[in-house]
């Protein structure tokens, strides 16, 4: 049953008050794409692993929805659960995720353009970041969260988050100096997107 007119909070209230599975299914449909995309980025392109963690995230959301306080957005709350689930997974499968075992998502085989190279270097520059710096950049830029929301998702103080962002940006700036010096801008980057 489609419930397009209901806000996330209406649906959550129905799940909490009477365990409405249809309402929860609607929440899953609404948020699955953004959450899976975020986890694919977090897992460096492990599609299956990202989907497993996404599934676990929704199961945990179902079990713990009584703890949802309606203070944060549902999506932000989901990102927090997903980040914790991912951390648990990292600890469990640490050896699998180290180094070369990663099987990144297949990149489209387009001719090597400046934009493509730039995105590859951007991705590589992010891999060079520490786990905490990577997570901070991921939440603030790729999940489009405010600093407050990102600090909540990562479970760290706001000041620590800002430090991670500053350090990450400095590392990336140095790594990408070749591009930033040559004046490649977002317009060039977008040429390779579509």
């Amino acid at each position: 049953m489609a419930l397009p007119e209901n806000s996330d909070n209406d649906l959550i209230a129905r799940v909490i008050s009477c365990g409405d599975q249809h309402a929860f299914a609607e929440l899953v449909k609404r948020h699955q794409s953004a959450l899976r995309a975020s986890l694919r980025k977090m897992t460096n392109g492990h599609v299956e692993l990202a989907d497993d963690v996404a599934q676990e995230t929704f199961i945990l959301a179902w079990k713990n929805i009584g703890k949802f306080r309606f203070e944060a957005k549902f999506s932000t709350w989901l990102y927090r659960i997903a980040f914790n689930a991912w951390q648990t997974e990292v600890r469990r499968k640490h050896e699998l995720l180290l180094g070369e075992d990663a099987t990144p998502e297949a990149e489209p085989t387009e001719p090597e353009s400046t934009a493509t190279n730039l995105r590859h270097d951007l991705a590589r520059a992010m891999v060079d970041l520490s786990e905490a710096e990577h997570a901070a950049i991921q939440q603030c830029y790729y999940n489009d969260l405010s600093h407050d929301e990102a600090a909540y998702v990562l479970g760290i103080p706001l000041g620590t988050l800002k430090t991670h962002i500053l350090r990450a940006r400095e590392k990336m700036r140095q790594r990408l100096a070749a591009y930033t010096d040559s004046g490649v801008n977002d317009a060039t980057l977008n040429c390779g997107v579509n």
Partner: protein
Amino acid sequence: MNNHDQQHVMEQNNRLDAMLQADSLAHRDQYIDNDGFSDRVMARVAALPAPAAFNANTRRRLLIIWSAALLALMTVMTAGAGDQFLVDAFMDLATKTITPNAVGLLLIVVATGVMGVGAASSER
């Protein structure tokens, strides 16, 4: 670092920001097709019990608060004489007279305080 260097770093930072914004925008614009994902989630959800409206901590806090209220009510009903209990108790305390009413009121204050502290610490 001189002014020229500072300006150079600032320009690099602006370009990096633009690159990150553009790349993240492209990332957010991609839609991942459901492709049975939500069905798989709901198949697992169906096997689980309905979520509890209150989590364990909230249940504990509610239990403490209700227990405190019940204790207070029982004290009033048994130790005092109806709605005169509080008046009598305060009067007794003001005149430093130890009576069942005064002791009852002190007990209620202490018990409520202890339970309040318990409720507050169960939040953490």
